[in-house]
Structure formats: structure tokens, C-alpha cells
């Protein structure tokens, strides 16, 4: 799988609208188990329950780092799919606010691309479990994006 580079992978994925294939090409995405769903032109990212993603065993709760990783991956995938860059976007900074504990249940994320400059993209990410209006975490990230030639 790693023999196919990201640009080539992206071309194939676009052709078949199979965004899951793109996520599955990233080993860390397979580790936490991120799923990509497209609803019309919008993307919804899903993190199914996974015992290996647990942090606090008492609640139990998803490790805060996994929630952050899930949101950062969601942002990178959104950029890959929506902006068609020449290579993987590189995260420059990531600012994460935890609002409530992420329980051991399915988690969702959506991204908003606020600005796409010639080199830097600004993305806001919201993660929730029960209701979209009741987020468990919000984040903002900057990515370096190399535009396609």
C-alpha cells in the first residue's frame, strides 16, 4: 500500500469517490480507526469505538491525545480531498480545547476550511458524540499546503 504515493492515491480516490481508501493509506489513521463518510459535498469523520483508544479506564474515556489525533487527521484529510495538494499537508500548529470527556462511544468530527492561502491553510475542527451542538472538543490548525503543479 505504501508503494503508491499520496498524489497517485488521491487521483484514484477522486475517481472512485472512495475517501476511506485515502485514510487507510495512512498507518496512524488505521491505528485509531478513522472512517470517512461523504454526505453530498460534505465530509463527516467518524471514530468508531476502539478499546485501544481508551485513556482513563475509570470513566472510561477516550485518550485526549486520540481525540486530538482524530481531529488533526480529519483536518488533513479534508485538505487533501478538498484542495488536491501535491503532497500531504504539513501541520504547523494545533490548538485544542477540551470541553468534556470523550466517552467510550462513537465520535464524530467536521472541519471548516476558513482560509486557504497560497501556502498556509487555516482549519477549524469540531468533535462531538451525542449532539453536534454539544461538542467534546474544538480545535484550530494551520497547515503548510503545497499546491498541485
Amino acid at each position, binding site marked *: 500500500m505504501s508503494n503508491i504515493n499520496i498524489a497517485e492515491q488521491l487521483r484514484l480516490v477522486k475517481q472512485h469517490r472512495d475517501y476511506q481508501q485515502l485514510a487507510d*493509506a495512512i498507518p496512524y489513521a488505521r491505528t485509531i480507526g478513522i472512517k470517512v463518510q461523504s454526505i453530498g459535498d460534505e465530509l463527516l469523520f467518524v471514530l468508531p469505538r476502539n478499546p485501544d483508544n481508551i485513556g482513563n479506564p475509570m470513566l472510561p474515556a477516550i485518550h485526549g*491525545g486520540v481525540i486530538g489525533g482524530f481531529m488533526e487527521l480529519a483536518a488533513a484529510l479534508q485538505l487533501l480531498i478538498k484542495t488536491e495538494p501535491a503532497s500531504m499537508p504539513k501541520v504547523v500548529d494545533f490548538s485544542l*480545547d477540551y470541553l468534556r470527556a470523550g466517552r467510550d462511544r462513537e465520535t464524530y468530527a467536521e472541519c471548516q476550511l476558513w482560509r486557504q492561502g497560497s501556502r498556509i491553510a487555516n482549519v477549524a475542527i469540531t468533535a462531538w458524540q451525542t449532539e453536534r451542538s454539544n461538542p467534546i472538543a474544538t480545535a484550530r490548525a494551520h497547515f503548510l499546503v503545497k499546491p498541485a503543479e
Partner: protein
Amino acid sequence: MGNNKETDKTAEESLWACRQFVGVLAHCNKLGMTVEAAGDGYAQLKLPYSEAIVGNPDTGVVHGGSLTTLLDTSCGCAVFSALPGYELCPTLDLRTDYMRAAQPHHDLICDARVIRASDNVVFVEGRVIQSGDGELVAKATASFMRIGVHLDKLIAQTVKAREASS
């Protein structure tokens, strides 16, 4: 005390407590994360390089998300070692600057230090370097909330369960 650290634990007790704490975090076990040092508001954790944390399959560079887990856990351990007893503090926010891509096949080391522990919030700084050349890969600023939850019981139960099984 200058740093407002209130710990009543010795360095050995802090290291032991942090290892117990990280030992019960399933995701940290999955990534093979270990506590290398801890005490008096400081903690050092190691994240070994593995295929599981790779973010770019073309280059083998690790994903930022695994650094988020390393930084969050390390900063949490620093908080743990700064406070008396075994107090659990959830993360309020974590801001990370990624200075350079970590080179593939290098383990990552995170040093986390409590800057100030107030009655309600604990402020922490974390730095991730790559093993070998010691280059700075990422740095983070985090704050943790003191909600008054103590893990003393859980730690005692874990120890008892381990003793019973050995």
C-alpha cells in the same frame, strides 16, 4: 516555593505513580509509551518509533496526532508529580507548535514541566525532541483543571491486582 508545587512525593514515588498511571492507559500501551523520569513537577516520557504512528506513508514521518498523545500524557504526568497524593486533572487545552518533521526511525522524547500550579489550574510546558541528534520537533503549552478527583483508590487497586496475579 517558587514554582508553587505542592507535592509530598519523593522523586521515586512520583516515578512509580506516573508509571502506574500511564500503565492503565490502553492507548499509551498500544503505542509503547514509557515513563523515563518524573518528580517535582517534571516528567520525561518516550514514544518509540513504530509503523503504527506513521502519518505520511511516502516518507515514514510520524503523525502529529501521536505527538499530541505524547505531549498530553507527559504534561499530565508532570502535573501528577507536582501535586500531593494522586490527583487526576483533565486537560483544558493543549497548543502545539510543530517545529520540524520528526525523522523516521527515531524515538521521540518528551520533557514536560509544570510552570505554575494554582488552586484551580495547572500550567505546563512540554518539548518533544528526537533521539539521536536531540533536535526540537515540537513544543506545547497546556493547562489542566483541578477538579478534586483523586486516583489513590485506583492506584491501590491496581497494585493489589498485580500483587495477586504475580
